[in-house]
């Protein structure tokens, strides 16, 4: 079933690339494929037993001499992320294209990207993980470069270069990790069970450094985040939504899956350093976001901030080999929920930003104002998403951040205290943006500004509905993650 | 060794004279026997005509080199068992080197006066002589096969049973082509032909010309001696002493070579080149194969 969910989008992409479909037909086909894929994931979810380790496992050999095989399976961490990605892809594909050029290729690349993203979350093989990690770069590169605006090729190039550097570091670290077991095996379960480099100081440290650097670029963490703003600003709205909602999660997911689980001991040694970097990201992301006058750039920087929370949670969770178990589980729980929530919220925010751009062609906050009258539905959606993002209780962001902070206070209280500053700044920047865009004088140029269409509103309703659902009733998600019981 | 050298040096002048005499037979150019000497003396008394901006050193040295090559080539020929001026185990290779250097020397000779006809003669000579060299070496290798040695002495000794002329009937005729080319005569005389007003020696006069002609005749002697040794059994022969046999055979080959030079018609260089490469060279391969099959036990 999982293999089906991964390969179906690839097949769909191949179909779209070769079959002569019209723009509308290709959109329909793409939505259908994405929905089917999501449906397959839901089937797995239906049979999922929380806390019972890896499930729905499938294996097939790929490169036997290296011990590489097609291995898929889910646990409480990957399933929510995969579900969220599946959903977000349906949303992004259903979202109308900003510029109607070459729709067939556009949807093909989206499906390609979906296959890569799902594959990354669902695989249990380190090398396949890496393969999908790189494939996601390729997909995103073409989406940004071809359908972006502004200096899109340049932004795409920067994105590709940065993240490839990161992914290659991960590859080296992976190989170094795998080489320490005999015979070679890229099976994640083996690695988690064996903890292969435990006790090797220098080598383990270097391997950890490779992983952390690689994932930090992808996440992105301060100071390796500089590729993110141009990529977001120049990408088309749906691609931004995927970039922020899904691709960034790859970094944090990888951080959890590989360094934290496979290098437990080493990770614990250096967890504090990672926590400090996460803190820097939180603060830097929020403060710089506050200074931005470009809607998309502002949202992009809040991603740096939010991913900082997630990494903080992970750092806390991996901070010690023994002791403070409850707090650490809480923090990890929070981190996973943060990933899911951030995916939904930021996905929605970027989609909205895309719709604004589609109407006026600019992201400058100063060129907007008083849109509340013209576009109430837009304002509602944006408001809800913004509040969720700044962590208003009752919404998904709050659930996540509360757990992270509680966990962090138990382990490193001073660090958590400083990190709280970030929350305040975030609140300020979102409120400021809402106020400047929707309230005040409306420039005459915006008189013809249309509200959200029904499609757009429907998509946003699903995403934001989930945000609210997680906010008011998070138990189902926490159950699914099931760290305490696992 | 030294004795052999002295014999050679003593025998060379009469032989050179004989070569000049052979060249005169049937041409009606004055006295047959005394003519060459008279001509030579006359040339020696004339002044050497200089040309504009020549390569003086090479011009002066070219006849010397030519003569030297003839002498060195001659020196590997055994006069009798054990009587050889330079007793090399690789005598045939040295002979081959002399052949090849002859091309260079003739080219130098044509090049040094800085005049069109000699230069053209030199170019044409190189083009024709190169395949002729190849040809001769294949033939000589054929002669060396039964001897299992590159020493000229061994080649002679291997002919005690039967001469190479019999073993490889094609060998001597093909080798004669080389002789004609080496001594700038007959159908291969592209370096000194009459239509180029004398070719490489068009600008020569006086003692220089005399030296060049002398060297050319010496080369004919050397070639004939080599041919006699490689194909006609050299000093081998009944009754008479070895050196005498060699002398007789050499004279015979000389006469044959001169006659062949007269007999065969000249062709345009391109056709001659094609003939050499496409007909004669493959013939030499065939000759080699023939010997190869014959000598295998």
């Amino acid at each position, binding site marked *: 079933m999982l293999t089906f969910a991964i390969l179906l989008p690839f097949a769909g992409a191949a179909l779209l690339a070769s079959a002569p479909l019209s723009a509308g037909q290709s959109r329909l086909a793409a939505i259908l494929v994405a929905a089917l894929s999501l449906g397959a994931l839901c089937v797995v979810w239906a049979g999922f037993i929380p806390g019972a380790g890896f499930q729905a496992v499938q294996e097939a050999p790929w*490169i036997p001499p*290296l011990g590489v095989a097609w291995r898929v399976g889910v646990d409480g961490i990957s399933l929510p992320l995969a579900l969220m990605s599946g959903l977000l892809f349906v949303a992004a594909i259903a979202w109308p294209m900003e510029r109607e050029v070459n729709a067939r290729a556009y949807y093909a690349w989206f499906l390609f990207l979906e296959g890569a993203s799902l594959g990354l979350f669902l695989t249990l093989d380190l*090398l396949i993980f890496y393969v999908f990690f*790189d494939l996601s770069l390729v997909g995103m590169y073409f989406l940004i470069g071809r359908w972006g605006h502004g200096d899109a*090729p340049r932004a795409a190039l920067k994105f590709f270069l940065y993240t*490839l550097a990161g992914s290659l570091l991960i590859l080296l670290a992976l*190989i*170094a990790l795998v080489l320490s077991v005999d015979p070679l095996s890229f099976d994640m379960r083996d690695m988690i069970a064996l903890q292969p480099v435990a006790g090797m100081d220098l080598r383990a440290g270097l391997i950890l450094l490779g992983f952390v650097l690689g994932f930090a670029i992808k996440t992105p963490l301060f100071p390796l985040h500089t590729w993110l703003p141009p990529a977001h600003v120049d990408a088309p709205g749906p691609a931004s939504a995927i970039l922020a909602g899904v691709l960034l999660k790859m970094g944090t997911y990888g951080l959890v899956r590989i360094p934290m689980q496979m290098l437990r001991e080493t990770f614990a040694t250096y967890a504090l350093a990672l926590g400090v970097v996460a803190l820097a990201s939180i603060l830097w992301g929020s403060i710089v976001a506050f200074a931005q006058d470009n809607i998309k750039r502002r949202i992009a920087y809040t991603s740096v901030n939010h991913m900082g929370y997630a990494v903080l949670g992970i750092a806390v969770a991996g901070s010690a080999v023994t002791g403070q178990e409850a707090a650490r589980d809480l923090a990890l729980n929070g981190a996973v929920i943060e990933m899911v929530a951030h995916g939904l919220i930021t996905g929605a925010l970027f989609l909205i930003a895309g719709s604004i751009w589609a109407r006026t062609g600019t992201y400058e906050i100063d060129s907007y104002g008083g849109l509340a009258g013209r576009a109430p539905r837009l304002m509602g959606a944006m408001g809800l998403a913004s509040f969720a993002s700044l962590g208003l209780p009752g919404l998904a962001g709050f659930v996540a951040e509360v757990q992270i902070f509680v966990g962090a206070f138990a382990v490193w209280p001073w660090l958590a205290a400083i990190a709280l500053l970030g929350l305040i700044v975030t609140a300020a920047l979102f409120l400021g943006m809402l106020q400047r865009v929707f309230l005040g004088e409306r420039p005459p140029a915006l008189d013809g500004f249309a509200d959200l269409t029904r499609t757009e509103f429907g998509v946003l309703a699903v995403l934001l509905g989930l945000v609210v659902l997680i906010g008011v009733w998070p138990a189902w998600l926490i159950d699914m993650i099931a760290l305490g019981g696992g | 060794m030294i004795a052999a050298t002295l014999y050679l040096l003593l025998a060379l002048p009469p032989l050179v004279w004989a070569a000049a005499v052979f060249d005169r037979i049937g041409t009606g150019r004055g006295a047959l026997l005394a003519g060459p000497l008279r001509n030579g003396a006359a040339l020696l008394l004339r002044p050497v005509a200089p040309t504009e901006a020549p390569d003086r050193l090479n011009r002066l040295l070219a006849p010397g080199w030519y003569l030297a090559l003839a002498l060195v080539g001659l020196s590997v020929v055994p006069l009798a068992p054990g009587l050889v001026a330079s007793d090399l185990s690789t005598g045939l290779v040295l002979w081959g080197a002399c052949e090849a250097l002859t091309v260079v020397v003739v080219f130098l000779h044509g090049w040094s006066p800085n005049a069109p006809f000699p230069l053209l003669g030199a170019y044409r000579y190189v083009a024709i002589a190169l395949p002729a060299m190849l040809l001769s070496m294949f033939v000589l290798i054929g002669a060396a096969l039964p001897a299992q040695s590159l020493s000229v002495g061994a080649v002679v000794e291997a002919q005690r049973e039967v001469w190479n002329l019999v073993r490889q009937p094609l060998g001597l005729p093909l080798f004669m082509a080389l002789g004609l080319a080496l001594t700038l005569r007959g159908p291969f005389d592209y370096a000194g032909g009459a239509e180029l007003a004398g070719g490489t020696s068009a600008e020569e006069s006086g003692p220089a010309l005399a030296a060049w002609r002398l060297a050319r005749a010496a080369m004919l002697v050397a070639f004939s001696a080599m041919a006699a040794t490689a194909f006609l059994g050299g000093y081998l022969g009944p009754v008479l002493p070895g050196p005498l046999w060699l002398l007789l055979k050499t004279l015979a080959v000389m006469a044959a070579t001169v006659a062949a030079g007269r007999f065969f018609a000249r062709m345009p260089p391109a056709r001659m080149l094609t003939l050499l490469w496409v007909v004669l060279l493959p013939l030499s391969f065939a000759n080699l194969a023939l010997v190869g099959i014959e000598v295998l036990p």
Partner: protein
Amino acid sequence: MPLADLGPEIALIAGALAALLMAMALPQPRLGLCLWPALAALAVAGTWAVAQADAARLTFSGVWALDGATLWARILIVTATALCLILAPRWFATDRRHGEFYALTLFSALGAIAMAAAADLLQLVMAVLLSSVTGYVLAAFHRDWALSVEAGMKYFLIGALANALLVIGAILVMGMAGTSDYAALARTDLGQPLALAGLALIVAGLAFKLGAVPGHAWMPDVAEGAPVPAAAFLTVVPKIGAALALFRLVQLFPEVEMLRPLIAALSVATMTLGNLAALWQDDLRRLLGWSSVSQSGYALMAVAVADLAPDALPALLWFLAAYALANVTGFAVVAQLRGRTALADYHGLIAARPGLAAALIVALLSLTGIPPLIGFTGKLELFVATLDGGYGWLALAAVANTVLSLGYYLRVIGPVCFAAPEGPPPACLSRAAGAVALGSGAAVVGIGLFAGPFLARAAGAVVLP
């Protein structure tokens, strides 16, 4: 005499002669038919090589190693040569006489195979010579085009010097060690400075064939100036032979301490230089040439850890296979587009010629090492071997270089996909060239996806002695 051991090579010679004889008989417009005997010979050679797959012995008095490395070299070289040759008939259609192109290429391929199989210094010298002299002619094959002649001349000048160094090196090693046979050399102690200097000279000479520092300068010139089929051939085939020859050499002297660091240093220098130079190119062929230089640097990584890591040989073989396929694809696309080289000519190619553009993109991404293309498995193996052999810093340098290289590959891919097309769609060369481009492009993807069995075979390869 085990003549059958050299069956594939003899087939190549026979094919070359047949092509030459055919070239003699055919009128100018039909000279392209000489392709067929050449292809037939390559097919025979390939099949024969596969039939000898399990052999592992020294043959012909120990000068020829018939082992896994030779097998792979034969297969790779034969395949690459065939692909390059298919481009030729139409490319040279206007050339007055090009019948000998096929024969020369086959001889050059023979030289490359002999290089890879050499188990004796003398044979190595001969093989390098054969591969070189034919290469010079191939590079300058467009006699009437200044660029081609110039490329040939530069190739020759560098090559003659490098070959002289190689010869001197071989003499020094042989003189000091007293033997030229690899099996015997392996037993000698190569401690004297003179012998070590000789070894270094041999490495320098082979670096020329490989296109690595210090003998790399010809590569971009040849890639740009040589006729495209010849450029594809010369950037790929000699490299395969030289890399394996170097591999054998390094493996031969495990106790010579300077050799590995030397090769590792050359490797880093080569890849860095190649990549840095490629960054500024505005000419696709020259860019491919510099990228070939950098790829030589990667290949040297595996050479540096020969014998240290069990995976070194499969890594090298597989990397070479990946490189060969991708590079030939790139040049096939250039050929199919009638040799247009300026990057500006490629703007918006994806709209005008989607298939070719896709092949080009796939080839370039494979050269970078993006999964799941064949280049990825190649690089993966390289990294595994290098890390396993304890040369972590080398792997790190390679990573940095890979990122660097992506920069210029994207400089091609970007305009191909994102820029607006200029002018009418480009003219194509021939259906055969298009088939080569598309076919090898598909192979870059396909073999990359199903690399398992191939890699398993490569992992079983042995190197003698």
